């Protein structure tokens, strides 16, 4: 069972966990004020969520080895969703 943890997936998981903690720290400590997050921290939190989603889709879901239509569909969805999140969030500030 231990042999399987030498998989590149374990490194992906380590990266995902590390940037989750970074995102939590940015959102609760570093950039947080009573009036909300500062713009740089907010942008970093959105970017980290986008990177994490893509890492899961590409590596855990194995979309990196999937047919082109699925790679294009998942990347387009990520671009649209995170584009929407960033634009709504920053326009409401």
């Amino acid at each position, binding site marked *: *069972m231990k*042999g*399987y*943890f*030498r*998989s*590149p*997936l*374990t490194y*992906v*998981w380590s990266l*995902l*966990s590390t940037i*989750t*903690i970074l*995102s*939590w720290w*940015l*959102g*609760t400590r570093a950039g*947080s004020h009573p*009036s*909300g*997050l500062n713009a740089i921290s*907010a942008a970093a*939190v*959105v970017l*980290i*969520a986008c990177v*994490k*989603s893509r890492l*899961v*889709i590409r*590596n*855990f*879901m*194995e979309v990196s*080895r*999937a*047919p*082109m239509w*699925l790679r294009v*569909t998942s990347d387009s*969805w990520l671009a*649209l*969703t995170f584009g*929407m*999140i960033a634009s*709504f*969030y920053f*326009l*409401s*500030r």
Partner: protein
Amino acid sequence: MANTTNPGLRACTQGISIPGDTAHLPGDSSIWVFVIGEMVTFSCYFAAYLFDHRQLHDVFLQSQGYLSPNLGALNTLVLLTSSLFVALSVHATRAGDSGVAARFVGLGGACGAGFACIKGVEWHSELAKGFTLGTNKFFMHYYMLTGVHLFHVLLGLVFLGIMWRELSGPGSPRVRLVETGATYWHMVDFLWIIIFPLLYLLR
């Protein structure tokens, strides 16, 4: 347990391609239709949340302050860990290590159950403070988004149970069935990856 002469395990640990391995759609094609449908549906939920966030910025800002980002982050780590176990179970299944794959699925399921328990603790805490679905628009979205997501987690636990049964039974497990269940579980994971910053961090 497989040794390193096993091509499936070697491919898993070294990240190399199995000969003849080109584009591969993991799982049944119907699960991908479902996953893409869910992605679109959740995008609509996110859009509705963001629209109200823009309209009622002060209410959302104040209400978000009552949530626990610590529990949200903990749940993210728990779900990421469950996804790792489930992804490794797919590799073990392909390598012919059904017993190991079943154990990975069991660990993934345990993490999934942990996620549901933490969510229960969080909801209990919010309800104890008097925040319900009808308190304001933020809490309506909070309970709706986390509730729909939790329903997906519970459904995913059923799928993991089916995978575990397949891997624990006699004979060769159906790799496609394991891939299909894993694909669903990872979808649950990446949807939470988006819900967490939206509700807890982006204030």
